[in-house]
């Protein structure tokens, strides 16, 4: 890695984003004969909102699954805060401070909103089992602390009214919000959002955009997100990486990316005359 990676970086909009947090290097991911991701490299800087875009089947979700450890790439490596990551299980990566949401909501449907978000605190619960069972000092303190964090998130996401409702009963937009809450509860260093606005109406999208910007702003959380709505992407992201058929075809600020002829081709189709 060169020295530039350790310096802050000023975007054309005048926002200062930090040094490189995660570097994805030459990742290739194959399923049998199908190459889902081919030799992709990019980086994510501290404090930025990084968007991954591309047409259907471009390999965006696969990329997120690689970062989060659900998939293990055949080639390439991932550096997290300068250190190369060995082969890790998803739960170990979660413990390292990488939280995520899913394209098709993955919540614990039988549990209440509060309990769901509380599970996000798992990586912060350290008291031994018997102390938890007996509600012994250390466990009690921990529980109260965790509960405070969770309540703050519930306030922040404006979901006080549904805190005791089983999430299976909630409408789609709210479920998405609860899922974001659960990811936030982990106080992640890096937050991965897989299509946080898929299937939402305009108002819900606006709400979600606001939450994402606020999370980034207030908690300073680094966010990598996949999104289809170009308008949203252009509005909220600092830098964008564009994938198409498993290859990277563009990387830069929203303005740079949108001017890139290859990106225009991928989205609008190429005329071969």
């Amino acid at each position, binding site marked *: 890695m060169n020295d530039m990676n350790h310096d802050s970086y000023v975007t054309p909009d005048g926002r200062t984003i930090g040094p490189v947090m995660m570097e994805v290097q030459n990742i290739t991911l194959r399923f049998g004969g199908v190459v889902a991701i081919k030799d992709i490299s990019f980086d994510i800087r501290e404090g930025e909102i990084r968007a991954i875009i591309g047409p259907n089947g471009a390999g965006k979700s696969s990329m997120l699954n690689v970062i*989060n450890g*659900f998939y293990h790439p055949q080639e390439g490596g991932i550096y997290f805060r300068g250190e190369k990551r060995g082969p890790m*299980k*998803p*739960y*170990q990566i*979660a*413990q390292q401070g990488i*939280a*995520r949401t*899913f394209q098709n909501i*993955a*919540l*614990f*449907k*039988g*549990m209440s909103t509060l*309990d769901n978000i*509380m*599970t*996000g605190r*798992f*990586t912060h*619960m350290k*008291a031994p*089992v018997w102390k*938890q*069972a007996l*509600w012994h000092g250390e466990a009690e303190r921990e529980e109260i602390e965790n509960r405070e964090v969770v309540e703050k998130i519930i306030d922040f996401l404006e979901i006080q009214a549904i805190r005791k409702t*089983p999430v*299976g*009963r909630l*409408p789609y937009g709210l479920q998405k919000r609860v899922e974001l809450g*659960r*990811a936030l509860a*982990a106080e992640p260093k890096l937050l991965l959002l897989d299509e946080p606005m898929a299937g939402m109406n305009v108002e819900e999208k606006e709400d979600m955009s606001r939450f994402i910007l606020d999370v980034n702003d207030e908690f300073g959380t680094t966010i990598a997100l996949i999104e289809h709505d170009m308008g949203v992407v252009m509005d909220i992201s600092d830098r964008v990486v564009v994938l198409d058929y498993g290859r990277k075809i563009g990387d830069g600020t929203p303005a740079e990316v949108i001017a890139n002829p290859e990106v225009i081709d991928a989205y609008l189709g190429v005329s071969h005359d």
Partner: protein
Amino acid sequence: MPIWLLNTLEVSINGLMTGVLYSLVALGFVLIFKSSGVFNYAQGVMALFAAQSLVGIQTGQVPFAHLINAITGLHVSRFGFDVPSILAIILTTLVMVVFAWVVVRVIMVRLVNQEPIILFMATIGLAYFMEGFGDLMWGAELKSLDVGLPSGGSFWIEDVTAQWAREGETYWGMYVDTLDIWATVIAVFLVAGLTIFAQYTKAGTAMRAVADDHQAALSVGISLNRIWIMVWSIAGFVALVAGIMWGAKSGVQFSLSLIALKALPVLMLGGFTSIPGAIVGGLIIGMGEKLFEFAIGAPFLGGATENWFAYVLALLFLVFRPQGLFGDKIIERV
């Protein structure tokens, strides 16, 4: 007290205690179902296997003796020493933990994110495998199990209750098996411990989370393997306790694994996802079938109603309250 009342009381008490034993088996099912969404068909066979292992270790049997003899032409059968009961129970618990580890490593990890029905089929396979494996390891003959728990009627209860009858009537007191009393006490502790564990600890919540969604559980930092091994170990331990109780009552033999069938109506009554449900369900069925036999079955229907009463009751519940008394109502948005 009139004699009919004393008799009813005696039948009820014995029914409740039988119910406790049903609950013990049902509990094993509930634990695994809650935490992995798997209906573990092998629970009954696990109880049999645990009981076989316990007797085998206690009496110093050589595992796989028949197999060894058949292959090598030797005639080994016993090591020639007895293992004390407590130590044997601890060793059997370890056997069940190893068993849990193997099940998770060999079967469960390959079925992450699969439909519940596939996991269910896998446990049917496991049940048949365990049945054969248990016989191969410890032999298929009927064994008697004795871990030193007292059994037989309690004279104290007989003496005390004999005086409750009215003057002039002949009454010899209630028959209550001390083994049943012990089983009840042990079950109460077991259930209290498990309930606290499941409701108030991180591991307990993690268990429920894993049952709900594998991917989501992984993404919040839960290790599926660890939770599964933990759950199967606990289920193995519960199977061991159930195996000890039933084995002490009726001997260790194949039909021990069939008590699992009695757990089904208990689960339908109590709900598949509720630990208290398994207890209450077991008690209702245990007491219900004894009282029904006593009051209606034996005098009017020619007896032996205990064999089917529980299933009829379960059927009624399926029709009118499919989630059971305490089960989670299934909520689905359309």
